[in-house]
């Protein structure tokens, strides 16, 4: 049996470039208009898996992501860096899922990939900054969890030892496997794409992508089956739709406001001596300072 590692990664809108039309009227994110990237901390998670693979010849890395069809892009990115296989969970019925519904779907998919030793997630995704999906998947799979991993210092088939980065310090813990860990941004950055792997997996596709490109894929997939990125729907993971999407999400977005500054009446001053001196005098007289 191989040492199977499942890496959870999410394709996220790059929140550093948000425009006005980024939100839909129902309060969910309009992903279509934003550049989509591999969630940064999930790359750190992938790197931790790749490091185990360097040390254990029996290690196998599976990248699992749930998202729209284009999220297959991050599976390819993971293959270029050394992941062995990818699964994309995609279905319209997942739309609008909050962390609870997302973790439900991911946990069902992970059950299909049993037996595994380790599930590695990022600490948090930059679109929501919630850091909830990791622990919630762990709960649904009845796994112990170790959050904020900075480094895996040892991994055997039975036990893992990890240094965690906490707000005000570090902690080393060991834990029985299987387990779920989440990886912090202070962990090692992910290695770049590997040129050989890039050549090998450049044409890796999901079936829907191939249909979109109207290519004849049957032949390619029989001669090079590793190029197929598997797609799973709600039915494939035996999910109960009641627990998915908006209906499976106890949190509702009531209101969204763009951030606007309530402009104050501000006094504009220059750097002239007299302006600065008047200001300082004011502050001292009113006991704000001094």
């Amino acid at each position: 049996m191989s040492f199977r590692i499942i890496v959870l990664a999410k394709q996220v809108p790059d929140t550093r470039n948000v425009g006005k039309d980024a939100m839909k009227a129902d309060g969910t994110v309009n992903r279509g208009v934003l550049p989509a990237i591999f969630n940064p901390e999930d790359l750190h998670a992938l790197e931790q898996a790749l490091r185990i693979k360097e040390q254990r010849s029996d290690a196998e890395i599976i990248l699992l992501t749930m998202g729209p069809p284009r999220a297959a892009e991050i599976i390819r990115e993971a293959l270029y860096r050394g992941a062995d296989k990818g699964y994309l969970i995609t279905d319209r019925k997942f739309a609008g899922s909050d962390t609870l519904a997302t973790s439900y779907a991911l946990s069902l998919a992970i059950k299909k990939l049993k037996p595994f030793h380790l599930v590695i997630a990022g600490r948090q995704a930059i679109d929501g900054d919630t850091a909830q999906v990791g622990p919630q998947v762990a709960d649904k799979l009845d796994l112990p969890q170790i959050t904020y991993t900075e480094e895996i210092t040892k991994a055997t088939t039975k036990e893992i030892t990890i240094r965690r980065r906490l707000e005000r310090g570090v902690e080393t813990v060991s834990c029985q496997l299987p387990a779920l860990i989440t990886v912090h941004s202070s962990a090692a950055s992910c290695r770049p794409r590997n040129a050989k792997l890039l050549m090998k997996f450049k044409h890796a596709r999901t079936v829907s992508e191939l249909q979109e490109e109207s290519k004849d894929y049957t032949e390619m997939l029989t001669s090079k089956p590793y190029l197929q990125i598997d797609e799973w729907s709600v039915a494939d993971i035996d999910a109960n739709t009641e627990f998915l999407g908006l209906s499976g999400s106890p949190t509702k977005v009531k209101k969204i406001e763009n951030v606007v500054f309530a402009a104050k009446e501000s006094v504009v001053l220059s750097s002239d001596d007299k302006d600065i001196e008047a200001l300082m005098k004011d502050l001292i007289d009113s006991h704000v300072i001094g």
Partner: protein
Amino acid sequence: MNNIFVYCEFDEDHIADVSLELLTKARKLANELGCKLEAGILGHNLKGIEKHVFPYGVDVLHLADDKRLYPYTTLPHAHLIIDLFEKIKPEVALFGATSVGRDLAPRIASKLKCGLTADCTSLVFGDHKDNKSGKEYTNLLYQIRPAFGGNIIATIINPDTRPQMATVREGVMKKEFHSESYKGTVKHIDVKELLHDDLFPVRVVERHMEKRKVNIKGSPVIISGGYGVGSKENFDMLFELADILGGEVGASRAAVDAGFVDHERQVGQTGITVRPKLYIACGISGAVQHTAGMSESAKIIAINNDPKAPINQIADYSIIGNIEDIIPKMIKYYKKNTK
């Protein structure tokens, strides 16, 4: 009416500040609803701990005292709180958005299948009407938080699941005694009965906790520097000004990323939230992620050579010019005119 619950984080020998801030907020929310405030402390050697939390207005304090509960690991804490929630069925449950709270709360929410909102910056009660079902709700907890990298402010509600769970970062709420003589009752959780060996797959091998070096949050005056300060050396001017004014030096993330100052000084959405008497923003443009952490300061002075910098819009005084000119002038005037 069911009550409001706060998970109080126990750290070696005291209750974390963020928990006391949450108790302060939760007491006010409980008064609004006319319900009680309950709290839970899970740790070891907790004798006498109640007198540190009752003044914040705690009516019922649940205590679990066992050496296996400190240092914190997820499963035993989650198990005890889930069991407690099944018994007391709180209306609202609040956790610090700390390494512990953000590890624990999602696990509990998953088990109880209830909604959880991370990193709230404001919590208020309000009403809600569901457009589809027409169902009306009163006194739902509006969980208000920045989302999408701070570009929007979202109000989240959990209409149908209880407790309504939220985490809040340290420094976002104010910490205040409710009444120094306030007395609640202590209830002991039956730890021996509830904890079993399966809950301890994780073993803490080693811990190194650092004492906090700077205390920006408690400082009445903060001189904050941004990327516009330009260098580590220029930050020395800010340190000098902070020193003579009895304040602390803060920073924007760009200044921290550029290596001008330590991360622990970062103010903003992913740093600390401050509300000093005086905040001087030097060479800071005023991105929302920064202002989220300082806009409630009593007085704001912006020093920026760009008259159009957004920080000027929230400043009481905008000084247009270079920090290299202005800060030395401030230092000089202050030294000359105070003893």
